Structure formats: structure tokens, C-alpha cells
């Protein structure tokens, strides 16, 4: 469960380029819920995600994960509860390391890393089994450097890696944005499959309103560092992208000029 209360983050305070990225954002995500997050550029989506993962420290407010206050904890301390897939396929894996080494790193997420061997055959069997889900033949390439894989393949492996250890929340930061449409679709389906099979609590940031409504069970919209829209259940099922846009305009009382939001 994620419980974020009254988060504030200001970049470059007191300067001409001061940006108030989060302005009292509050959000609670119960266990097992899959939430999609939308909003225009600069709405605070990535800032919020980085605040939850610990990459950015909030100026004020509290973040609880699984009823534990993690507000002042660093990224690696939160990692026991937080799994993450980055937007950049290169960011989520170590390109100099092999597929199995990368997976071993993820397999040990949140555990003490002692002098036990990083790789053993039972572990390799587990990795092979998981990789075979992808249907990309990667299960036969365990000792290949992950840098040899395409962006889409790496992103798919990143997803598997995020699900190797139980987590209290899975953060997906526009993880399909850098992929070509067909690969993006593949990774998206994989996401749904993994999230559903492991009942992961998930927060997915997306640029696509269509995606935001089709996937998951709840959609929130951020604007100027706050949650301005929060729909789920019946209301969300009957919603179209046009509805969503209209609601957004109503809530904000202003016209949306950002093209990125209108793109599906």
C-alpha cells in the first residue's frame, strides 16, 4: 500500500527559474490496485514517481509504503519495497553485464548482498523459466551481454526483473514511451500479464489517455503538482478519451493546449 500525504517539491527555490513541481499532492493506493497516472508535461508525474522511489526528497509531506514511513529513506533503502521500470530502456539494466547477472542483481533486490555466489544453477533455471514467458528466445542467451539486446527486449527483461522479488509497489515510468508501437504494445501486454498474475500494486505513468483508461483499474490525472481527477469503477469503465478531456477542462476551468495530452 502506498500512502502519500501533502507532498511538496520545489526546484530551484528563490530563483527566477523556480518550479513548484508538487503542490500538496496526496494519494493513497490500496494493496493490489493498478493505477494509471496521466497529466501534461510539467504536471509533476515524473517528480511524483521519483519522490515515491526516493530519487527526489520531498520538501514536506510524508510517504508511507506498507505502513512504514519512508519519507527520509534513500532509493536503495526503499528498494526492498519498491520495484521500478524506467522510461529509458538503457537505464534499467547494466549493459556491460550479462542477462543472468542483471537478473541476479534484481533477484537480490532488497536483500543483504553477502559473499554467497551471485549465480547458481537453480537460479539460472528460474531465470530461464521467466524469460521463456517473453517468447523472445532469451532463455537461451543467459550469458549474453544485455547491451546486445534491443530496447524493447531490454525493457521486457526489466519488467521481469522488477517482478523477481515481491514488492509493495511497482513504479512504471512511461516505460513504453521509448519503444516503437508494436514493441510498446508487446511490453504493455506483458505488463498487464505480470501485474495480474502477481497481484502487484502498480503505478504506471503514461502519456496516452487511451492507455490510461484501458489498463489498470483506476486513473488519476495530475495538474500543477496536484491530483485533479481520480476515477475508478463504473465511472471509469464508461469513460472515453473525450470524456476524460472534458472532465479535465471542467475541473481546471481552462482549455488544454498541450498536444501531448491529445495524442492517444
Amino acid at each position, binding site marked *: 500500500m502506498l500512502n502519500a500525504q501533502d507532498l511538496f517539491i520545489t526546484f530551484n527555490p528563490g530563483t527566477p527559474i523556480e518550479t513548484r513541481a508538487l503542490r500538496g499532492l496526496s494519494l493513497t493506493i490500496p494493496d493490489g490496485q493498478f493505477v494509471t497516472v496521466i497529466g501534461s508535461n510539467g504536471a509533476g508525474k515524473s517528480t511524483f514517481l521519483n519522490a515515491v522511489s526516493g530519487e527526489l526528497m520531498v520538501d514536506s509531506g510524508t510517504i508511507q509504503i506498507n505502513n512504514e514511513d519512508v519519507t527520509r529513506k534513500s532509493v536503495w533503502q526503499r*528498494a526492498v519495497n519498491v520495484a521500478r521500470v524506467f522510461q529509458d530502456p538503457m537505464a534499467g539494466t547494466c549493459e556491460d553485464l550479462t542477462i543472468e547477472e542483471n537478473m541476479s542483481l534484481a533477484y537480490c533486490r532488497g536483500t543483504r*548482498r553477502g*559473499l554467497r*555466489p551471485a549465480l547458481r544453477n537453480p537460479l539460472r533455471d528460474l531465470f530461464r523459466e521467466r524469460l521463456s514467458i517473453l517468447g523472445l528466445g532469451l532463455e537461451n542467451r543467459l550469458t549474453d551481454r544485455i547491451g546486445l539486446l534491443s530496447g524493447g527486449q531490454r525493457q521486457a527483461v526489466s519488467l521481469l526483473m522488477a517482478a523477481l522479488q515481491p514488492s509493495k509497489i511497482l513504479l512504471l515510468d512511461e516505460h513504453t514511451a521509448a519503444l516503437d508501437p508494436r514493441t510498446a504494445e508487446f511490453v504493455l501486454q506483458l505488463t498487464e500479464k505480470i501485474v495480474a498474475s502477481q497481484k502487484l500494486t502498480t503505478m504506471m505513468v503514461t502519456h496516452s489517455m487511451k492507455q490510461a483508461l484501458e489498463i489498470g483499474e483506476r486513473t488519476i490525472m495530475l495538474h500543477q503538482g496536484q491530483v485533479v481527477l481520480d476515477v475508478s469503477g463504473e465511472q471509469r469503465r464508461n469513460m472515453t478519451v473525450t470524456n476524460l478531456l472534458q472532465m479535465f477542462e471542467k475541473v481546471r476551468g481552462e482549455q488544454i493546449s498541450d498536444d501531448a495530452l491529445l495524442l492517444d
Partner: protein
Amino acid sequence: MSLFSSLGALELGFIYSLVALGVFISFRVLRFPDLTVDGTFATGGAVAALLISGGHDPFVSSLAAMLACGLAGMITGWLNVKLGIMDLLASILMMTALYSINLRIMDGPNIPLITSDTVFTLTQPGSIDDFVWRPALLCVIVIVVKILVDAYFSTRSGLAMRATGSNLRMARAQGVGTGRMVLIGMALSNALVGLGGALFAQSQGGADISMGIGTIVIGLAAVIVGESILPARRFLLITLAVIIGAILYRFFIALALNSDFIGLKAQDLNLITALLVAIALILPKLRRKRRNRGGA
């Protein structure tokens, strides 16, 4: 080149293999440009020479030298990780500080070890000459160190250290305490360099304040030569390449200095080394450029 000078080159090659492994850990694994080694090579020699000349066991003295240098490396890491000083600058600061510390340790510019027992004289069988025994023992030491280094990097902690150097953000997201990994890695790296210094002092008859000068360039030269001669991806082979690089490098230097017709003298050593590293760094780029031109 005579047998005698070949064995001498081999001996130095093995000693600098330890340095090269240390430099490999900081520069290649952690991607931390660490000049501390110029200080810690001499610190290793100084601590070992001080203890040995004070009548302590040479093996214990060498271990103590490793510990002292590991601590120095850790301080460099700490300056960078905890105090936020730029990595290169932190290591230069530590190197500078170590110059004074080394003078303090030795209470002067050098400590001779001509008459003292060393790890070499203690273990030398009567039937083998010292100039043969020293490279033989060093070979064993290097093999043991290589196996230990390889073993460490195959553990979960070792893999986390490699991830720290390769992709810091990813390592953190996977729960790796990257700051701690840098400290451990820098300690490990400098402990190896310190061991090299301790053995250097024992093989060359004493420790000297200037013995550390250029250590980083020699270590880098060994790493680069090794990588270009044996380009490998597997960790076991990379460490092997680094060791081979160090030995080849010493042979190259010995050859250059022993060939009278070139007219080089011992004092040209650092110049040759710097040139060699520069060439080794430029070559792959030239090769790539030519290949690109050919392909286009």
C-alpha cells in the same frame, strides 16, 4: 635481453600485476579515476619496510601494509561519497596527503631492507637462486590474488559492485548501497596496490619515498595493454588479461632500456610509459575511424 634481466622484468611484472588488478578495480569496475595509488604504492612499501626493519614477521608486515593502504583508499572513497568531493580531486588530495604520511612513516625518505629477512628470503629453498625464486614466489602470490579477486566478483556483493560502476541509478533501484560499495571497492583496490608496494620494497631492497611516482600510469598501461591484447568479456579472462598486460609492459620497458641502439636510459622510464599509454589510448580510436571510413 639476458636471462637475468628477463627474470627481473618478470619479477617486476608480477609485482605490477597486483597494482594493475587494483587499478582495474577502481578505473574499470567502479569507474573511479583513482590517483591515490601513487601514494599507496609507497605507503605499502613504507609500512612493510618499517615493520620488517623493526624485526616483525615479513608476512604479517605485508598484511599490515595492505590494511593501511586499504584504509587510505577507503578515505578517498569517503571524501567522494560522503563529502561530495569530485572523485579525481579526492584521490589527488589523498595522494598529496600520503606523501607527507609516507615520510612520517619512514621518518625519512627511505628505509633500506638489504640485510633483513623478507617474504622471499624466508621461503627460498637453498637449491634455487634468489633471482629465480623471487619471480616464482610472486607468480604464486599473483595467482592466489587473482583467484580471490575473481571469487569475490562472482558473489552477490561483487556483482553489486560491478553494477555500481556500470549503472549507478539502476544499482540503487535494485537496493545496492552504492556508497558502501565504492568504499569497499576503493579499499580493495588500494590494498592490492599496497601489497604490490610491500613486495616491491622487499624485492628491491628497501622502500623509498619516490617509489610510488607514476604508479597510476603504469597500472593503467598494464590494464590497457592487457585489454587490447586479450579483449575479453568474461571476468576471469579480463583479470588474466590485466596480469598479462602488466608483465608484457615490464618486458617492453626492459627491452627498451636494454637496447643500447635506441639510446634510452632508466630515467626515461616515465616518459616511455606515458607515451605507451597515450598510444594505447589513441590506437582503438584510429582503428575505429579507419573502419568507419571503410564501411561508409
